[in-house]
């Protein structure tokens, strides 16, 4: 063990209770003497900032958006899991824990996941109390639906806009604390570096995105809630501004980066339509409850479809292959995301893909529309169907959707211990920004759960442990480390502005995305990864010698913002490749072509790879150091995942 993950002793079911008792407390009168910086105001950051302020701490919250209500948590569609067992269908904390560990292909920490399942029930209560308008039954009680990777209905939802409603709940709690003066909100402020004083996180350097001013901010602790790094791939379902800069800067200041190769490809996204494509749009996994996934049975028929010689609605049942239902009778269309994605790719690789590019499969609602009527389907999925229609110009009530997998979520992230503290004392990471709960694959409706669990119910307890051991003396930006970090930030911006080459930040980003998708996407191989590493190194050199920017740094400059983020993606991308190359097994979202079962399923190697790969920065252009946190499983039996 390289690092104490601080997992409490004792039986799984008692760890969190015991730990909450054992962590040190800051007395109520002293809380106002501590300043905490929270970077990012999505579900994890917004919930944390509000909850910490309610406890009495002084919070400074930062977002690069114009308002904390715009974080990408808002786009989550399908729902949030909780082990309420309101449906009386056999759910329990242990079952949610078990499903999550299994769904993550046994690469998550048992203790963290169990805690997540435990606090899941409190999240629903909290959100209801805030006025989040969850879907209800006619009797007035909360409604549930089922989601991939589970055989119970434990997903709470607000039509197809659950993330929006939960985020607005957290935003309202945050707004209340801003009004009270307990949270000072900095909008359009981007964190560009972490400041470390005497080995501890003591502040950040930010750039005001409207004026270009560089600012120093000090605090007793820093919380990163800055989301995932899916935009390394350029095309993903992430929002355009989503980036890894805050996490990557922290990594380069000493925070280990764990399992970067664990990225999730979501099976149901609207396919790419052209080179101009700027992002991909997810069609919620909840659609797989009622939609049936299929491709034509034969390559010949698929070809005729692609050429427009036959219409999809003219293809009879006998010529369709409902491949998920055929291969996985127990879970059918609701297999976990990694399995569904790989199978879609396999169908397209076989030449049975549809759409003019052949890179799509059908998601068909004809059966459910026939069974329950278009009106009832519209009640459930109306906004998703309308969105699909707007983007593609096709009506999913009349013909099946075309879908294809796309990068959606990153399970990897900053390494954290049980307290959500990174390897830098005083620096915490929450939500998608950390690595801790989803292993190698995240189950649907679990991202919202984890973000809010961390923000509302975990961090507010655990951060006190470290603060109680920190003297409540005021922190300032007087220490030379602040000036030093600011100088580094300025030097980097100057460098970006002065290259004056020919290629735009987006041009480099697209190029990087192409390399990552091709070699580090749904399927990876040692040979491909070696090739990709060389390509990225070359691209990075080109970036620093041929980048084109305009305007100045002392004003709103979106191309400059983008350039800084792409520069960090170019480094993180290489680490993802190193990690994928190191992990000689297939598990969850990480599929190495060399390691598969005869049926083409992921083949894990528990003997050699049941560990968290935590990478340690070791200087510019130096190979990173691999630290291993062994994963031990005492409460679930490691099996080959089967959804058949």
């Amino acid at each position: 063990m390289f690092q104490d993950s601080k997992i409490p002793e004792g039986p799984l079911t008692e760890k969190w209770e015991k730990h909450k008792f054992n962590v040190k407390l800051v007395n109520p009168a002293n809380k106002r003497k501590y300043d905490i910086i929270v970077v990012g105001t999505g579900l994890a950051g917004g919930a944390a900032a509000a909850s910490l302020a309610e406890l009495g701490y002084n919070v400074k919250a930062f977002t690069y958006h114009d308002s904390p209500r715009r974080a990408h948590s808002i786009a989550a569609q399908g729902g949030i899991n909780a082990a309420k067992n309101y449906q009386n269908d056999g759910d329990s904390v242990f079952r949610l824990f078990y499903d999550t560990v299994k769904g993550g292909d046994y690469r998550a920490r048992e203790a963290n996941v169990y805690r997540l399942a435990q606090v899941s029930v409190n999240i629903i209560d909290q959100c209801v109390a805030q006025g989040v308008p969850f879907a209800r039954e006619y009797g007035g009680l909360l409604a549930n639906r089922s989601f991939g990777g589970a055989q119970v209905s434990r997903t709470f939802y607000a039509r197809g806009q659950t993330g929006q409603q939960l985020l607005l709940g957290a935003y309202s709690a945050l707004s209340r604390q801003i009004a009270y003066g307990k949270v000072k909100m900095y909008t359009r402020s981007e964190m560009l570096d972490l400041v470390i004083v005497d080995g501890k996180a003591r502040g950040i350097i930010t750039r005001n995105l409207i004026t270009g001013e560089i600012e120093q901010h000090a605090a007793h602790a820093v919380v990163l809630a800055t989301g995932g790094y899916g935009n390394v791939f350029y095309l993903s379902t992430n929002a355009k501004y989503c980036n890894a800069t805050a996490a990557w800067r922290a990594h380069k200041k000493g925070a280990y980066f764990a399992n970067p190769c664990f990225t999730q490809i979501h099976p149901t996204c609207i396919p790419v339509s052209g080179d101009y494509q700027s992002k991909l749009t997810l069609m919620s996994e909840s659609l797989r409850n009622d939609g049936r996934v299929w491709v034509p049975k034969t390559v010949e028929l698929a070809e005729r479809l692609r050429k427009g010689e036959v219409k999809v609605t003219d293809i009879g049942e006998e010529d369709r292959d409902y491949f998920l239902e055929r291969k996985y009778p127990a879970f059918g269309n609701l297999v976990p995301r990694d399995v569904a994605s790989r199978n879609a790719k396999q169908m397209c690789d076989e030449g049975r893909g549809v759409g003019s590019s052949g890179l799509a499969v059908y998601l068909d609602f004809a059966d459910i529309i026939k069974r329950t009527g278009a009106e009832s389907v519209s009640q459930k999925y109306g906004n998703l169907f309308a969105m699909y229609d707007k983007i593609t110009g096709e009506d999913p009530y009349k013909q099946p959707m075309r879908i294809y997998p796309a990068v959606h979520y990153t399970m990897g992230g900053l390494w954290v211990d049980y307290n959500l503290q990174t390897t830098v004392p005083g620096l915490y990471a929450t939500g998608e920004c950390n690595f801790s709960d989803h292993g190698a694959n995240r189950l649907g409706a679990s991202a919202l759960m984890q973000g809010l669990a961390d923000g509302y119910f975990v961090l507010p307890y655990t951060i006190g442990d470290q603060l109680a051991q920190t003297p409540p003396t005021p922190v300032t930006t007087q220490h030379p480390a602040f000036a030093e970090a600011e100088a580094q930030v300025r030097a980097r911006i100057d460098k970006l502005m002065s290259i004056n080459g020919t290629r735009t930040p987006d041009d480099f980003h697209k190029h990087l995305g192409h390399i990552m998708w091709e070699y580090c996407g749904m399927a990876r191989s040692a040979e491909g990864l070696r090739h990709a590493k060389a390509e990225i190194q070359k691209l990075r050199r080109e970036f620093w010698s041929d980048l084109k920017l305009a305007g100045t740094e002392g004003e709103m400059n979106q191309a400059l913002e983008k350039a800084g983020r792409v520069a960090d993606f170019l480094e993180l991308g290489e680490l993802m490749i190193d990690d994928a190359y190191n992990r000689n097994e297939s598990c969850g979202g990480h599929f190495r072509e060399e390691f598969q079962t005869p049926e083409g399923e992921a083949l894990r190697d528990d003997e050699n790879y049941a560990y968290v790969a935590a990478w340690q920065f070791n200087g510019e252009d130096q190979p990173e150091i691999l630290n291993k946190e062994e994963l031990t499983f005492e409460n679930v039996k490691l099996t080959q995942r089967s959804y058949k």
Partner: protein
Amino acid sequence: MAGSNPNAKPMNLTLKVWRQKNRNTNGQIVDYQVRDISPDMSFLEMLDVLNEDLLRKGDEPVAFDHDCREGICGSCNLFINGRAHGPEAGTTTCQLHMRKFSDGDTITIEPWRANAFPVNKDLSVDRSAFDRIIQAGGYVSVNTGGAPDGNEIPIPKEIADRAFEAATCIACGACVASCKNSSAMLFVSAKVSQLALLPQGNVERKTRVENMVAQMDKEGFGACSNIGSCAAECPVGISLENIAILNREFLSAKATSNNLA
């Protein structure tokens, strides 16, 4: 490519775009030509094409706000040919696609125009006034922890659905931009209605509406004259009924409470 419309012809367009260096300078309309625009592109992807061209030439790209490009974050906010979010009803700018335009069209693109939304640069405006209105009372005052079980507060489905409809406001500001008075009544009423409909919001019902309306007035938004262009242009269909609810809530609060002077 896998576009839905493989036979659609690329378009050449003239853009008339508002350029303004910052909030302290005057702006002006500048003309640009964009070529080979695919009908399957989104409106913002068309602007990406323009910006890539400008940047390659060493000119400053046009600043505009956007993020999720799925119609939910509320960041994008362009006034296109005289209409908030452009010609398609019920659609944010990011979800507007170029198939709604024709080859040879001239498209005028401006920022939201309202005193309460100062221009940051080009097409980007400052909507922090909306945040301050929410801070004035757009919440239920519950701290984390200690909430009763979710099912202890049963809510009739019809009420929950109506509250949800109001809660879907994305705070883009199209209502303000479309109103001849730059009124924020639709935005404010959506939040007031959501919480007035739900039992959770009942305790603070009166102070909430009074405080939010007071902040709305303080921010410099105009009065409502019941024309309804806000609801007509709202990309997520927030209903005008909410304004009626707001007025009722406000009057009843004023008539019965001593909260504000």
